[in-house]
């Protein structure tokens, strides 16, 4: 690892504020909140961000969509330049090569625009051509059947895009809704997380797996997927091969669930808010879950599916981000203490402290909450009519458009980075343990979302007064 020592020595002399610019979470906050603030300032001065937040509109024929792109070419170019500059500054600050990121992002943007436009086809839902699913399938096929150039990898920053999208999502999320629904989401998520972790850990240990692997698998399945697995692997001092095993299983099951959960929920005719809560309880990663929830939002109004399109994504976010993600530091701290005091010691001493909770806190959630507060303050005092006729089209809708772009970049990146041949071999026993947790998680999540708390999640999806 060349220059490693020099790098760490120079890093130790850096300002303590350096983390604010050296972590992806914080860059998602700066980009997302920056856009929200600019949109807010423009709105206050009678202007809007909507010119640059261009999105494909409904079309029926190829001529129509070609005409749309032709008429809005300048806006699409400006949007591309905006994203390129914002994400380019972020990836450069993280230490990635800009020379590779620029062409990679250009490819990502062009393919995303085509997928977004395909989703706007008036027959798209008839053929299940929802943009998240198309992006994922296309990416999976390309990454597993073609030899993609190495430079393309630099533009495929799944987490960076999804975190930025979640911060922007906060702008369409009334803060009172978070206060109203947050406690229920936390309660439901706590039940499912504890039970799922218990099942995976218990089965894994019974099958003779190392306790550190059992814990890594457990948090990966119960809390926040790959992020949970990597966080707990470090906290408990897992063996080098433990995190890759857990990550392989999370990815495989998460991708299966992207397709299964929305399709089963649609077959059952679940309202959008209820389906979103189930997906938020039973998916394993933010990016995968948002792909499923965004897909389901496209089913609103079809075949008896009630609720607003946004309710699916909102319920998912409450359940997954507020209910599960924010607790990762607590899980890491508790398991670190248990690993240090109860499990076999092979000569490595850990120093767990309460600061672990903040160090591992997913900071992009702060951006999500602040974005919600900003737009909620902007809406304060407005009548429902004024909110719908002024604030929504001029402030909220452009930010939602930008959010959808960030999500499509993410969904396409998931497919393009999932190379099955490169994943670690998980082995039968970790697979059985993790799968036991998946089964319990999906059933329990379904019962809690559709029976125990059904009235609550259904109400979330009702249109306003």
């Amino acid at each position, binding site marked *: *690892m060349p*220059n*490693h*020592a020099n*790098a*760490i*020595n120079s*890093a*130790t002399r*850096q300002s*303590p504020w350096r*983390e604010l610019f*050296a*972590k*992806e979470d914080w860059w998602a906050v700066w980009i997302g909140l920056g856009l929200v603030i600019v949109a807010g300032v423009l709105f206050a001065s009678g202007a809007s961000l909507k010119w640059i937040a261009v999105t494909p509109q409904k079309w029926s024929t190829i001529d129509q969509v070609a005409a749309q792109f032709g008429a809005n070419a300048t806006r699409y170019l400006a949007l591309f330049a905006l994203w390129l500059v914002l994400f380019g500054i972020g990836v450069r600050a*993280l*230490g990635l090569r800009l020379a590779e990121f620029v062409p990679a992002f250009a490819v990502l943007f062009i393919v995303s625009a085509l997928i977004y436009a395909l989703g706007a086809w008036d027959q798209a839902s008839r053929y299940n051509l929802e943009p998240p699913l198309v992006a994922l399938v296309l990416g999976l096929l390309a990454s597993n059947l073609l030899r993609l150039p190495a430079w393309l*990898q630099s533009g495929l920053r*799944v*987490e*960076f895009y999804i975190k930025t999208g979640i911060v922007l999502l906060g702008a369409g999320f009334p803060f009172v809704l978070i206060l109203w629904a947050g406690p229920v989401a936390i309660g439901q998520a706590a039940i499912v997380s504890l039970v799922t972790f218990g099942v995976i850990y218990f089965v894994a240990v019974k099958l003779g797996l190392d306790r550190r692997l059992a814990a890594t698998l457990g948090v990966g399945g119960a809390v926040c997927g*790959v*992020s*949970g*697995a*990597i*966080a707990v*692997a*470090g906290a408990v*001092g*897992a*063996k*080098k091969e433990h*995190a*890759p095993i857990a*990550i*392989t299983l999370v*990815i495989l099951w998460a991708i299966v669930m992207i397709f299964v959960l929305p399709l089963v929920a649609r077959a059952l005719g679940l309202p959008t808010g209820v389906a979103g809560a189930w997906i938020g309880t039973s998916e394993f*990663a933010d*990016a*995968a879950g948002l792909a499923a929830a965004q897909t389901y939002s496209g089913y609103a109004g079809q075949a008896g599916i009630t609720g607003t399109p946004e309710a699916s994504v909102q319920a998912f976010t409450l359940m997954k981000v507020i209910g599960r993600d924010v607790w*990762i*530091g607590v899980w890491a701290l508790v398991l*670190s203490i248990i690993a240090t005091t109860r499990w076999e010691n092979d*000569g*490595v*001493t*850990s*120093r767990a402290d309460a*600061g*672990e909770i903040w*160090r*591992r*806190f997913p900071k992009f959630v702060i951006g999500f909450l602040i974005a919600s507060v900003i737009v909620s303050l902007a809406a304060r005092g407005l009548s429902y009519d004024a909110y719908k006729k002024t604030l929504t089209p001029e402030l909220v809708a452009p930010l939602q458009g930008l959010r959808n772009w960030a999500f499509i970049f993410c969904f396409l990146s*998931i497919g393009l*980075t*999932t190379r099955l041949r*490169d*994943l*670690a071999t998980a082995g039968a026993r970790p697979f059985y343990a993790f799968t036991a947790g998946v089964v319990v998680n999906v059933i329990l999540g379904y019962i809690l979302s559709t029976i125990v708390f059904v009235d609550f999640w259904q109400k979330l999806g009702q249109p306003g007064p």
Partner: protein
Amino acid sequence: MNLWHSPAATARTQRAPRSCATCRHFCADPKAIEAAIPGLITLGSGYASVRSDDGLCERRQRYLSAASSCSQYEAR
């Protein structure tokens, strides 16, 4: 190679100079971590806050917190 090192780790490193953070066997570089852990970039990231300042110990073949320590410590 651009090594990420958090302020929290810096503070702890200064308190515990023989921790993994300053050991020559330990690497917390996000780019190296992403290369060493297959699938991490698919639904996660080496640059995420949840990863804190953890890294790989090549000596013990373990993925450890930078604040950990052991008898095989060797200063950079």
